[in-house]
């Protein structure tokens, strides 16, 4: 087992473990903290995949922005903070558990069956100056998706403001 594989396994275990803890946590606040652990694991996987830039983005946006946003929302909502008692799951949770594990089994089965039958490229990607490449691509080939994404973000922010505004 190489060092790389070791890191991978550790990160995956951290990630999946936090994810499981997240969906089972009784308190929403705790769940959100576990979610941060999951995001961190994903970031490690990104770095292992030579996508360092994306790993940083993952930490900045998911942990720095989205998770914090969710934490704030939780703290502002007494209902979620566990001040009102009640079960954490809906009545259909056993069904959902069975289905989700079936789906997982099906996908894993398929992947194992497929084995290594992918068109794996020989070379590793050239990631020197990768952020520069990405930036240039955003301004040229992917200009339209970039603009659309920024538009969506803007509209979403304005929409969110409109929704929460006091009448």
């Amino acid at each position: 087992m190489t060092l790389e594989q070791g890191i991978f396994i550790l990160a995956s275990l951290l990630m999946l473990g936090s994810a499981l803890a997240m969906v089972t946590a009784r308190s929403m606040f705790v769940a959100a903290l576990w979610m941060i652990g999951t995001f961190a694991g994903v970031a490690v996987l990104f770095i292992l995949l030579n996508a360092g830039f994306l790993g940083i983005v993952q930490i900045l946006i998911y942990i720095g922005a989205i998770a914090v946003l969710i934490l704030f929302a939780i703290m502002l909502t007494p209902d979620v903070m566990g001040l009102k008692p009640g079960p954490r799951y809906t009545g259909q949770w056993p069904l959902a558990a069975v289905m989700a594990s079936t789906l997982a089994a099906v996908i894993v089965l398929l992947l194992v069956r497929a084995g290594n039958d992918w068109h794996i490229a020989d070379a590793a990607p050239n990631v020197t100056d990768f952020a520069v490449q990405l930036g240039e691509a955003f301004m040229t080939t992917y200009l339209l998706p970039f603009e659309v994404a920024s538009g969506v973000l803007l509209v979403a922010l304005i929409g969110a403001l409109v929704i929460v505004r006091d009448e």
Partner: protein
Amino acid sequence: MSSIPLNWYLIVAALLFCIGLFGALSRRSAIGILMGIELMLNAVNINLVAFWRYVEVDGLAGQMFAIVVITVAAAEAAVALALVRALYRSRDTVTVEEIDLLKW
């Protein structure tokens, strides 16, 4: 070549996806559902980047997609949390079981 096979990533991503799916399907709190969905989006991102790393080495599309997905996730979180706030204000609950105006 990396010493980790592509399949490992795909399997981990699939498991993460299914955990997120379970969360989205079973949580009573709207915020819990939202968090489940975030996990699913992360799983998708792992797949995108893994395929980029192993198959489409020369292109940028895999990372581009991942970045766009992150953007959409951010937008989604903002809107969804705003909705939760508004919901809480008007109905005094964020439990989805109690939000069933569309029932029979």
